[in-house]
């Protein structure tokens, strides 16, 4: 479904950093991929590249056979809305906006019909429908991350991309969130999760380890 071939991405921050150094990767539907590695190894860059938030300097990227590295900014945005749901470490909810409106946001951009029902379903699925009128600062971290997951799910995307989704949560709340990802995966959604915590990968069906912009190991795990 996602096919990255010989992808390279460089940043210049004082010195040149190879965030992606010839990465080739295939992700198929239904996988739960955990990407692990130390800080600065390029795992977040890989995730954002897969989710069309970032683009490669060299190499090819195809989604369902389409060369998306040749897409315009607008085509990438439209495909991103349809195909991917993002979950971030710092939740990234819009402040002074209710949970309901935060979850509604992706549907406004896709101009989907029956949006209110979909938002309700998504918030119920993650167990925070009762917080629909709350602003982010009126909720705990765990509740905010649930709202963020509802926002990722509301468009019924094929792939959820999560960047350290439990990084800002205590271990109990973190494992509740991981249970949520397990359920999402069990319903057939592909999950790609970046983390530096190996304990979180107990649900992953495939573990990719990165170092210095390269994939150093790629293992399938039987569950």
């Amino acid at each position, binding site marked *: 479904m996602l096919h990255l071939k010989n992808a390279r991405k460089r940043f210049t921050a004082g010195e040149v950093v190879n965030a992606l150094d010839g990465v080739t990767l295939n992700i198929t539907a239904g996988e739960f991929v955990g990407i692990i590695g130390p800080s600065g190894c390029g795992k977040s860059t890989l995730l*954002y590249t897969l*989710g069309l*938030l*970032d683009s490669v300097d060299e190499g090819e990227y195809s989604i369902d056979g389409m060369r998306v590295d040749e897409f315009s*900014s*607008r085509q990438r*945005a*439209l495909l*991103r*809305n*349809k195909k991917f749901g*993002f979950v*971030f470490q710092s939740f*990234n*909810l*819009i*402040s*002074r*906006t209710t949970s309901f409106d935060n979850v509604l*946001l*992706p549907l*406004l*951009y*896709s*101009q989907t019909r029956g949006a209110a029902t979909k938002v309700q379903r998504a918030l119920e699925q993650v167990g925070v429908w009762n917080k629909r009128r709350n602003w982010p600062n009126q909720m705990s971290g765990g509740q905010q991350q649930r709202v963020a997951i509802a*926002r990722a799910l509301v*468009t019924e995307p094929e792939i959820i991309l999560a960047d350290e989704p439990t990084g800002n949560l205590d271990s109990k709340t973190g494992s509740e969130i991981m249970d949520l990802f397990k359920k999402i995966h069990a319903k057939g959604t592909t999950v790609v999760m970046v983390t530096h915590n190996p304990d979180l990968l107990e649900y992953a069906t495939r573990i990719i380890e990165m170092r210095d912009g390269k994939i150093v190991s790629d293992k399938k795990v039987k569950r």
Partner: protein
Amino acid sequence: MSIFENYKTALKSLWNNRLRSFLTLLGIVIGVYAVVTLLAAAQGVQNQIGGFVEDFGPRTILVMPGESDSSGTPNFAAQAAPSTLLVDDIDYLKAHTTLIESVIDYAVFIGGLATHGDKKLTGMPVGITPGAEELFSIKIVTGRNFEQADLDKKNRFIVLSEAAADKLAVKVGETMNIGVDKFEVIGLFKIDQSLSISSAQGEMFLIPAPVANEINKSPQVNRIVVHSKTVEDVDRAITEVREALTTKHGTTDFTVMKPSEILKTVDQIINVLKYMVIGITSISLLVGGIGIMNIMLVTVAERTREIGIRKAVGATEGAILTQFLIESVLLTLIGSLIGIGLAAITSYLAAKFSPLEPAITGTTIMMAVGMGVVAGVIFGLLPAVRAARKNPVTALKYE
């Protein structure tokens, strides 16, 4: 995102920063308020003069002292100097023209303080023939007006405005003074509002023209009013009057015109004033617009992370651009509407408590709203483009 949703988002964002939004749109409010109020005042003056001139018939021809300039504008400076027109010009016109009616009216301006008992008033005493009241759009409300007999007998009668009569506490039948000369009050009139600007708040006194000549000890007249026999002949009659008087005076030391030409001249002057008003107030709109650009740039910087989030959930660059552009346009639009509202209140109060009759036209409103919206687009564009072009990954990491 639908336009409705964009407006909702923009309104919410402006509401979340109420004080800042209000202070930002003050610049636009003041600019629009200034342009609408001043244009309404200019339009009011234009309407009033238009109404005054419409009171003249289409056959009316006016002769004024002083030569007009090449563009036809009357020589207003000549109005202050001794008049170049004389009473015998009227007889000469009667004898040497064919296209004008035999009755010729005229007006003679005189000086002198109006007094009644211990009450004093500096007004505008004018000697007229009965038909010349057309010049001043008056309406008798008490007593009577002059008749030809009063002129022939040089009766020392006076007709004055109600406003002047009030101030002097004088009634019909009583005697009052203009300077040292005594007059019996025979009638009171109301002045059409259109004149009140040009006649010292309507404090006007009318006396028979021959009496005015007697007081002035001079045969000078200040206005001659003739009528062409037919509407079609009015332009040829003007030429005839001009030629006749030029022959008599040996020079063109006077102006012959239709009142509509006065309107044209005044119109030209007011139109120039209007453009000046628009020009000057545009500067305040420019300042207001720069304020909006400044605040929108701050807003975009503050909301960098939000822009990243929106892009992550599928907002296109166009959607982000539209969102911020609508926000700045909404600011200027609200500012324009408040400015127009304040201008309407000011115009209403001005009409109620002053002789001005400001008129806010549809064109003025459309222009004010248009200027506001255009300012919103122009000054909101740079911040909106900046927002739209933000790299989503960098934006998401923005602290």
